């Protein structure tokens, strides 16, 4: 069989719309990305860029009433998840794809023992006895560094870092093929963040899990991702390997993001903020969404902008590459 295999995950032209006060909020506007088995891609962007909406569309857990996937496909090993029924999708969630949410304080059920919350996922997706599910849950607790005898405790008895470990244990209990991690360490202190990131990458390596890591922290991306996509106003502005993005950031927005963080190794009197703010998602500019804030914008930016290849071979959605570089 010489047939070329479909990529592990292929998202194509995905668009998501929310309705709010009768207005359409364009949260995701034509996102395409592919991800191979065992690899990690980082989605980087600011609040409201649409990162979480992308992850929720893959898992189809967008709020029913207000959100709608208006275009695109999400293919997992060639199968379009958007064609599946809710019943089939339920088989996939938690089993083949699972998600770690930002806030471990609200992701857990406060009235249920932590061990039971892990065992529940195991029992749902595997035909096993209650005792077997509990044993598996205890193993998972140990794997994330929590003693198994805390199985019967409640979330409020755990610290923030430990709660996030429980959330990770739930997400990984069925050894999913794809993990969606939405700002998994944002609510944690740096020392605990380092522990949790190490835990995620160890477990990921062990099971050859693919991961989409959503974050606004470029340091976290540098340390965990193979590939990076910079997201702005629901579009990918620039995407490439970690080396390409960190060594040759090309899009004016990417450059702006890097410039806005205080440098740990140099002393600068003033920071370089990006002027202005995200465009109103109910009223996006027709062309490049970053143009109103971009120091290099010209009239060319007023019509739709497509990806251009940069000299080092990564994709950048900018029509003034020479200016931005020069």
């Amino acid at each position, binding site marked *: 069989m010489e047939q070329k295999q479909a990529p592990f995950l292929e998202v194509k032209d995905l668009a998501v719309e929310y309705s709010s006060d009768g207005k359409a909020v364009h949260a995701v506007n034509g996102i395409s990305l592919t991800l191979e088995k065992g690899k990690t891609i980082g989605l980087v962007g600011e609040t409201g860029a649409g990162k979480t909406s992308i992850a929720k569309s893959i898992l189809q857990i967008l709020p029913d009433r207000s959100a709608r996937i208006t275009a695109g496909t999400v293919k997992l090993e060639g199968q379009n998840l958007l064609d599946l029924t809710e019943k089939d999708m339920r088989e996939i969630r938690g089993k083949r794809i699972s998600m770690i949410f930002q806030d471990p304080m609200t992701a857990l059920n406060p009235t249920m023992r932590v061990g039971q919350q892990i065992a529940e996922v195991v029992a749902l997706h595997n035909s096993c006895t209650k005792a077997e599910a509990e044993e598996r849950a205890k193993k998972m607790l140990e794997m994330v560094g929590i003693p198994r005898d805390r199985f019967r405790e409640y979330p409020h008895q755990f610290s923030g870092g430990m709660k996030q470990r429980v959330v990770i244990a739930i997400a990984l209990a069925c050894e999913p093929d794809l993990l969606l991690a939405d700002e998994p360490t944002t609510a944690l202190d740096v020392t605990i963040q380092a522990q949790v990131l190490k835990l995620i990458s160890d477990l990921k390596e062990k099971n050859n899990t693919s991961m989409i890591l959503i974050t606004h922290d470029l340091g976290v991306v540098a340390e965990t991702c193979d590939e990076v996509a910079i997201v702005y106003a629901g579009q990918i502005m620039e995407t490439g390997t970690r080396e390409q993005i960190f060594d040759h950031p090309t899009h004016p927005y990417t450059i702006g993001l890097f410039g806005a*963080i205080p440098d740990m190794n140099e002393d600068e009197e003033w920071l370089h903020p990006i002027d202005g*703010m995200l465009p109103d998602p109910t009223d996006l500019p027709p062309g490049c969404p970053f143009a109103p804030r971009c120091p290099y914008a010209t009239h060319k930016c007023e019509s739709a902008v497509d990806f251009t290849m940069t000299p080092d071979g990564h994709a950048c959605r900018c029509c003034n590459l020479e200016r931005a570089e020069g």
Partner: protein
Amino acid sequence: MSTLIETKGLKKYFPTPHGMLHAVDDVNIKIEEGHTLGVVGESGCGKSTLGRTLIHLHESTDGQIFFEGKDVTHVGKSELKALREQMQIIFQDPYSSIDPRMTVKETIKEPLQISGRFSKGEIEDAAEELMNLVGLDQRLRNAYPHELDGGRRQRVGIGRALALNPKFIVCDEPVSALDVSIQAQVLNLLKRLQQERKLTYMFVTHDMSVVRHISDEICVMYLGQVVELAPSKELFRNPLHPYTKALLDAIPSTDIHHSRKRELIRGELTSPINPKDECRFCARCKYASECCHKPQKLVEVSPGHFVSCTRVDEVNG
């Protein structure tokens, strides 16, 4: 240069059903006029409580607070009111620290009205000037907080803090809730205001890159105590306390070509309730030995660089 604010043996304990919670425990700090002291540490280390105790939002349990050389630890109501004009605070969360039912201008005007020293006309003018100062467009004067984005809301919080022309401002995680591009705008604003108005800041944060950028001196707190205090650059170049080392080591780096072998710090913060009289970090410290189980003292190891670790020589040897 003179010292604007100083504490001697400052303590703030909170009673809990399980015992005394030592939030701030014997803290001695000094901030020079026009300087910024950064206070860093993990959640629960007492850094916010320290800031709030300094400006009398909490009544201190023990120790002394000096403001412009005067002991202000215990002050009466009218003295406190006058003192509060000199000491202000900017809170972390601009979403909850501003009254949702007051407009931008009303919020900024309120401290001026409460002071009772200004006429209506003066207050109007001052409020307009303050809005310009913090970069809020005049068209936003009648806007309510929910109509503003996080960056603008924090500007309202800054404008309100500056209204009575204070000398000292506690900035309690003022940019933690903001996106990086907006964070840079607000940090630049705070720095510009400091230069223009000779402000003295205590800058409380858990973000090491932010604290390095904004501070002249940095104090590292662990479970209510200062474990290391040094000029900003010195602290980053030459951290001496095992906890400071671990904290700096845990920061994710954007430098992809120099990957470091990271030594992860073990465990989590231990309980601040009835802590033992010993090094509070020793349970997590890889250098800990017998001599760490006794009280530690902050010692000056080089000019301006203080460390509280009996094994500092062995650790850095």
